């Protein structure tokens, strides 16, 4: 199992060396419903932790996606712009959003692990 970490805003983070891949959780994609539009940050953008830096839209509404970590955006997933339904189908795989070079990689270890996130989601229903 990859060591996914989670935020209360329902993003996941996977740290690989000094680059963190970010996406939205299965819970988030399910709550949003069929996604029809994704807007991603520009490569090179410096983001703060908690800053709105991507947008997802379902038929019903637009929602912000937040940067889980401060750092620099180094890559975005063009495939989900072309086909937003990838996020619904494989939110923690092909449906990833962007990659960040975190200012401080140690912030990742402080995030919720799978078990803690599952418990957090339980409290929401």
């Amino acid at each position, binding site marked *: 199992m990859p060591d996914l970490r989670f935020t209360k805003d329902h993003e996941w983070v996977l740290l690989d060396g000094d680059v963190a891949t970010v996406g939205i959780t299965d819970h988030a994609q399910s*709550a949003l*419903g*069929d996604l*029809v*539009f994704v*807007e991603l940050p520009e490569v090179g953008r410096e983001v703060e932790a908690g800053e709105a830096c991507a*947008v997802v*839209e*379902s*038929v*019903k*509404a*637009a929602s912000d996606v937040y940067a889980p970590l401060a750092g620099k955006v180094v890559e975005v997933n063009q495939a989900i712009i072309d086909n937003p339904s990838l996020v619904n189908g494989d939110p923690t795989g092909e449906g990833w959003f962007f990659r960040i070079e975190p200012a401080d990689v140690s912030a990742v270890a402080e995030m919720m692990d799978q078990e803690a996130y599952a418990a957090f989601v339980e409290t929401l229903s």
Partner: protein
Amino acid sequence: MDAPLLETPLAALHRKLGARMVPFAGYSMPVQYPAGIIAEHKACREGAALFDVSHMGQGTITGTDAAAKLERLVPGDILGLKPGRQRYTLLLTDDGGILDDLMVANMADRLTLVVNAANKGVDFARLRSALGEAVAEWPDRALLALQGPKAAAIMAPLCPEAAALPFMGAVEAACGGIRTLITRSGYTGEDGFEISVAAADATPLAESLLDAGAVPAGLGARDSLRLEAGLCLHGNDITADTNPIEAGLTWTIAKRRRAEWNFVGAGAVRAMLESGPPRLRVGFRVNDKAPVRAGCPILAADGTPVGTVTSGVPSPTLGHPIAMGYVQTPYAANGTPVEFAVRGRMVPGAIVPMPFVPHRYVR
């Protein structure tokens, strides 16, 4: 603190069907079922969909002068509404604003009303203050909407009288052995029926319609369908600050009523009809993948602000976003290019005629 949410008589069925429930107008309502909004939307355009719209307000006006009394508050021709027929009309404020839009049916011994859920308190208070005891809310009632090109085929074996109705016809009849009041109308642009039924009978009736092939659909699909059909949502596209003339609802002011001008709000409506509306409700095609939502500023090609979007959705039928909103009258002609300011980016579009998807009402 918010009051606890009300439930419709179909709440247990929604849960059984796996609906995602959301608060809407004080009710816990299904926004979608597991199939999702796009699948539910397409089911309604291609087959038949079943919506629970029991949150809407149902009422009656009784007495021999019910129609004359109601005409004091609405610009529609209610005296001319024949038994077994239904009509769309507006409750207006003293200033000619749209307090609500509603359906009125002449059931011979009474008028029946369907009003918006969010407005029913205001509506019935106003109706009662003007019409007194003749007005009553119809308690313990559910309302189902069966919509789509296959709606009539589903209805026919259960209620032949309903299946024989013309568009905007109304009949009291047994539907699968259950007493109902059915109108041939809806909010999707498709052929279909709205079925008023006692709360206690709502679940078996809904189940028989689902068993016959209707797909359960929630408020999400209801909104995308009505917007494709160019139909207004009160609270978004029309409000107490909207005059019917600028809303493109001049057709709801009956010819006789335009000679009499004797309904509440008539002065302001007449003034705008005669002077011309400063702004108009129009439809937009968005020439971009980015959906444009309510509140989005609209700019002319030269950057002049000319209006605001009141509803927008990525159209599941057309495959591109569509929107509705108000623009200053000089910019309201079909084909006029516009831009929408979406998160700091200019998204191109143009004014197009509505409905976006042709109506397919039975004639």
